């Protein structure tokens, strides 16, 4: 079977002074190959922990993770990751960064440079091939990060707030790019974000997580990602259902934040 199955995942961190934090509790999601899922939630709800477990950087304390029929136990090239920022290798040029995965696999040079050239064209950076990454703007750097991840042809792409540090305009352009790449490559993508709009735009499926313990609060299936492919995202946002969902989810997260605040105040 193809797809990613997150099965009853739990994560418990023991604190040094005794006690423990339940970062995740019984999280289950089944993703078919090629699905785009966004994850939303207030800070501290375990979004990043979930992503790190899927990437294989953390071993869960309960439950399991199955990708294409085999259990995930550590990081692997089949699950690529795009980080918020600063995960590019500044000692390599744009070309070397994008070609990193293929180089590690020992892909022949000719084939590799074909892959790199193609991907740089896809993300619109063919003229910046030999530049150092620190000479690029934040948006361009994230495009390099996307291309670097795609160069490895992973089954699943994990995105940890990849657009969080970008300005509003660049962010919108990048959202279109992510949708385009999703449609063209047919990858399974999990995207973490703080922005409700971004979660609605970039999620066929959207899960809202609640904190303490981190768990799935609500799940949606949304039409906006399909609508947004090769279309003007601002038009999508004008859709009446979009506004309705946005208000609903904002209210939900607002309530959770208030509850956290209340709990901290009560404790203090």
């Amino acid at each position, binding site marked *: 079977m193809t797809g990613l199955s997150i099965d009853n995942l739990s994560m418990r961190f023991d604190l040094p002074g005794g006690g423990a934090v339940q970062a995740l509790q019984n999280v289950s999601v089944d993703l078919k190959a090629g699905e785009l899922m966004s994850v939303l939630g207030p800070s501290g709800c375990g979004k990043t922990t979930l992503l790190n477990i899927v990437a294989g950087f953390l071993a869960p304390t309960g439950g399991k993770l199955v990708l294409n029929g085999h259990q995930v136990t550590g990081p692997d090239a089949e699950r690529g990751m795009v980080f918020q920022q600063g995960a590019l*290798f500044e000692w390599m040029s744009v070309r070397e960064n994008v070609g990193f995965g293929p180089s590690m696999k020992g892909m022949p040079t000719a084939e590799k440079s074909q892959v790199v050239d193609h991907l740089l064209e896809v993300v619109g950076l063919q003229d910046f091939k030999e530049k150092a990454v620190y000479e690029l703007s934040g948006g361009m750097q994230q495009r390099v990060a996307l291309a670097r991840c795609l160069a490895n042809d992973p089954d699943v792409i994990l995105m940890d707030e990849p657009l969080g540090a970008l300005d509003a305009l660049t962010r919108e352009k990048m959202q279109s790019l992510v949708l385009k790449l999703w449609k063209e490559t047919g990858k399974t993508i999990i995207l973490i974000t703080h922005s409700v709009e971004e979660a609605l735009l970039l999620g066929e499926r959207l899960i809202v997580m609640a904190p303490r313990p981190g768990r799935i609060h609500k799940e949606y299936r949304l039409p906006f990602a399909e609508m947004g492919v090769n279309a003007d995202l601002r038009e999508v946002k004008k859709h009446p259902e979009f506004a309705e969902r946005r208000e609903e989810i904002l209210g939900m997260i607002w309530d959770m934040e208030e509850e956290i605040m209340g709990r901290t105040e009560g404790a203090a």
Partner: protein
Amino acid sequence: MIPFALYVAIFAIAFIVASQIAKRRALQDYTSLKTVTFGDESAVRPNRAAGVVSILTIFLLWGMFTGSALLPGFLHAPGPFEGTARFTYTAQAEDGRRDDAAVTVLVHKREVEVDAPEVTPGDGFAKDDGVKVAQWRNVLIAVDKNDDIRKRDGAQVVAIDGQPISPGASVKVDGGTVSLSDKGTPNFQPANGWQMEPLYLPAPEAVWTRMLKIADEGFRNTSLLGHLGWSLFRVVAGFVCGAIIGIPLGYAMGLSNWFRGWFDPIVEFMRPVPPLALIPLVIIWAGIGEVGKIILLFLAALWIMAIAARSGVSGVKISKVHAAYSLGASKWQIMRYVIIPNSLPEIFTGARVAMGVCWGTVVAAELVAAEKGAGMMIMVASKFQNTDIVIMGIVLIGIIGFGIDMLMRYAERLLVPWKGKG
């Protein structure tokens, strides 16, 4: 005190003049338009004029107070007295009779040989004397030696130039000071002026000619370049050994719990021990030859390089390592393509510090014991009071240390252009 006051005065005057000139031709660049400059470090740029004047001032003061031939005479600080000084002394015999006699003192440069001036004895029981004395020296004048009534006959010097004097007191005369020793013999000290004696501070041109001479003839059977070259060789050899062991050690400490635990106490203990404190032990163990020096410099560089490599490893952003793993890199590939390049800037910083420390340590080690080397050169020269060689050595050591640092910075710009860009 006077040179210091002059220095402050030149500083202030140059500042006022330069800022007046700067005001005249007000520069219109971006920084000049900043209204907040006090507290904005980026608006503070070294003033080139100040740098030039600063260096010129040092040479000016040096020349002024050493009577340098490079400066026109009117700029010199008052020099020591040179020429013939005359004073009279009044001798008193036991029976109260008094007689005056003149003393002629020829004050000559130290390096010239002269004869004492010939004088006619004159009349009376006290006879005139002629003596010589070198600048900055003093001379005890046994004025009674040619007198008819001598000290042992009860004669006493009671006045100089007509001014009464007693043992222990002194009188100013033309060209110097005469004091009476406890036993009643006049002592003449020619006026020193404000200049430094060449024995303590030679003029700049004297240092320069000495350097040319030593560059030409060598010093203690080794050429000047040989001395400096030996010092440099020791530094490079010690540093390379230290880096070869220290960098892998630092990596191991940054990557493995066991290595970190094992070497942390050793490194943290050795780090604050100044390498100079190890010189005696190294000499006891390895002698004063090359091996001992290289071991010392190895120890000086080792801990610095190990700590630099360790912090280079711990400075890797975890997201870079995670990214590399999820791109399919093996542990070895992570080491080769992520950890090593990421730690290079830190290692270069460490190398710059280590080279500086090694250069300082090698000079100190050569001061203690060596047959060749920059430190040995100034040490031996100081024993013979060859101050010019000492100053020359200090200047050359400074220039080479500065050169090493510039070279390391250049290499850093060339080899790790991504420094600080992560």
